[in-house]
């Protein structure tokens, strides 16, 4: 059975840029920032591509944002996704709005799997996948990881880490949990969110970069999807964490214990 997989490609600030809170504390300074695809999403795209390489099918990539996010959609298309869905929305949106749009897209596209990043590196919410699965009534497996290391032969041969059962009805997901790995079997359709150790995403081939612009890119809006994306959350302030104070030297272990106990109140 050919697979249909929905993946996401959020445009986020590049962690190599200098990120600073703006003086008013309402957000970050945008000037001079660079952007890229959320690395967790990139891992999701890679996993989906490996799955369809093995089982056949198509990968549909979605992004919500202004036209700027075409750059990330194009990257996913250049990596090998079949087509793109752009939800044109320039204003603020919170995790409920995002999950709402993705739910409507899933209802239209009816994928077997939706693979999302476990979180996006801009505001680190880690909620969209969970909402999406709940609202769709699908099974979910978060923090998908790989049993083998990223230097393993399995990774080098680009074997998917997510395993489908022979009848194609279930997916086996290894997840990262505190202190180890846990293996889940989920009935399809399912939502899977990716962790960093699931795979190493590919670099697009130049001929595929050139071809990306010929792949279909469908434009939608939250309104067309019937989703009200008015944020239910407001950011009241944003500030940098306090600078770390210089360390001190203590003369001996007794002094250390004393300070930990009485000053830091850590023990």
């Amino acid at each position, binding site marked *: 059975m050919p697979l249909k997989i929905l993946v996401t490609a959020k445009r986020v600030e590049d962690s*190599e840029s200098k990120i600073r809170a703006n003086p008013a504390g309402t957000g970050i300074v945008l*000037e*001079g920032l*660079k952007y*890229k695809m959320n690395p967790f999403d990139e891992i999701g795209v890679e996993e989906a591509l490996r799955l369809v390489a093995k089982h056949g099918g198509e990968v549909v990539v979605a992004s919500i944002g202004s036209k700027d996010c*075409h*750059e990330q959609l*194009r*990257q996913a298309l*250049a990596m090998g996704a079949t087509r793109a869905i752009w939800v044109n929305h320039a204003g603020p949106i919170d995790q409920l709005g995002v999950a709402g749009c993705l739910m409507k897209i899933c209802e239209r596209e009816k994928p077997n799997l939706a693979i999302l990043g476990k979180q996006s590196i801009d505001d680190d919410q880690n909620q969209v996948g969970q909402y999406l699965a709940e609202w769709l009534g699908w099974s979910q497996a978060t923090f998908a990881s790989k049993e083998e290391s990223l230097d393993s032969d399995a990774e080098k041969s680009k074997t998917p880490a997510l395993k489908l059962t022979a009848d194609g009805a279930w997916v086996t997901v290894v997840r990262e949990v505190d202190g180890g790995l846990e293996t889940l079997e989920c009935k399809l359709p399912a939502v899977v969110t990716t962790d960093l150790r699931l795979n190493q995403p590919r*670099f*697009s*081939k*130049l*001929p595929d*970069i*050139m071809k*990306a*612009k010929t792949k279909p890119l469908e434009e939608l809006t939250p309104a067309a999807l019937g989703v009200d994306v008015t944020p239910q959350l407001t950011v009241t302030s944003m500030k940098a964490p306090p600078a770390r104070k210089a360390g001190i030297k203590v003369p001996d272990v007794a002094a250390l214990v004393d300070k930990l106990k009485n000053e830091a109140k850590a023990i």
Partner: protein
Amino acid sequence: MKNPLLDDRDLDFQLRAVLHADALLTLPAFAHVSAADLDAMLSTWRRFARDVLLPTYRPMDEQPAVLRDGGVVCHPAMKALWPQLVDLGAITASRPLGVGGQQLPLTHVTAGTLYLMAANLSANGFAGLTLGAGHLIEAFGSDALKAELLPPLYEGRWTGTMALTEPQAGSSLADVRTRATPTAQGHFLVSGAKLFISGGDNDFVENVVHLTLARLDGAPAGTRGISLLAIPKKRRAADGSLVANDVKVTGLIHKLGWRGIPSAALAFGEANDCHGYLVGEAHQGLKYMFQMMNEARIMVGANGVATAAVAYQQAVAYAKDRVQGRPPWAKDPAAPPVRLVEHADVRRQLLRQKAIVEGGTALVLRTAHLADLAAHAAEPAQRHDTERLLSVLTPLTKTFPAEKGFESCALAVQVHGGYGYSSEYPVEAWLRDQKLNTLHEGTTGIQGLDLLGRKVVADGGEGWRALARAVEAGCVRAERASVPAEWTRGVREIAGVLEEATLALAGKALEGDVPGMLLHSADYLDAVSTWVVAWLWLEQAAAVHEAPLRTAFHEGKLRAAQYWLATELPRCRQLAALCVAGEDSYAQVPEEGW
């Protein structure tokens, strides 16, 4: 922090604000390309360079290739890197669609290549050489030869080399001795020895094609008797299989830098069974090579810039991190020490590197841009004029990043103090790598002779005039943008000084004093390069003034422009005076006086 290799802001600024390079996309040759394609190409290459290539640089430097059982064993990392470089388009990005390339502007491809070179120049070197070899076959080979050799080279299944140098024929390729004897079957039987052949063999692809300069039997002496042959390590047998072609690696050179790519001594035809295939017509080999030289020399300039850039980035990061000492006027010995970047002399060293790196980048990209226009501009007259300017700039583009880049790398070591001299830090390796760029593809001495003896005086001084016009156009742009008037005046004044010197030197040649004309050709090259880079700094300053917004990056640009115009440009006067006066110290030292 990871070394960013180059300043992304600078590449973006140079391509967009200074060169308006996306305007190339209006040319029919680039109708299939969008600006988003080029952005995606650049961002993919730079990510690959930072995340994959750079981590392999040190290991490859520390463990050079070895010769084992007659074959070259490269660093194992190359096995994984090579197919990725091929997929990235490192060989074919600029080649035409018709031969499987992507036909992207050389300007943007060069910008992308800077990242690959800065991250690991040896690994990228294999791709550059394969491109060079393929390009020669593409331009001059017969259809049959193209069908046989181009697909495996451009698909990266084979690699290529440039096999020019012989022990007695380095700078003087007219003295090449490798022989090629015709056979009834159409191929030639080749015998001879080549030296220093980069990428001369490897263990990560099945075959290597050597684009070789040789003399056919009975060829005239000198430059007019040299032919170009393609000599594969393994040739195609009648049954289609690949069999050994009597090409032997007789040794590998132990070298200062570029240790990730082997430089081999090769012997052709020791068993009298080395088949070579003539590329193009007989006796045209050097002419073909010269026609390819523009691009090859731009790539050497790009290597120079890239190597200086990565070292500069390392120096900036180090200077912002390490604390040492206090300013000379600080009274309190207990005051906390300052960061290196706060010392005036360290700032001088950093700004000098910045001026060289970004001035060199401007030069390399300008030259690549001219190459795009010379090949694809709509009007034949524009192609012709651009070609003229390109040929004058080429020796500068080859030399400035190499010579000044070496100084820049030395400054990066200097900023690191003693740590820079230790192999704990990578800057010493970039200094070693950089030295090659003044040597290969024509030494600096040869470039000086090319510029003064050939390029500027070509067609009654057309070469010089093309350059002077381009610089004047830059001055006009700077005036319009309200760049400080004294900056523009400085560039114009030196234009006059150098024009006078060029006329005087050409006059010497007309009077039969060619030695007098060429005595200071190195100084002439230095003066013209310094002035041309001053022009390009002026244009960068103009682009800053044209920008709607002024950022810290822009401020840095203006200070680097100011630095070059104030401290370097004035040197041109003294150099020009030496050239014209024919100052003869070294000419007069007697043989026994050394």
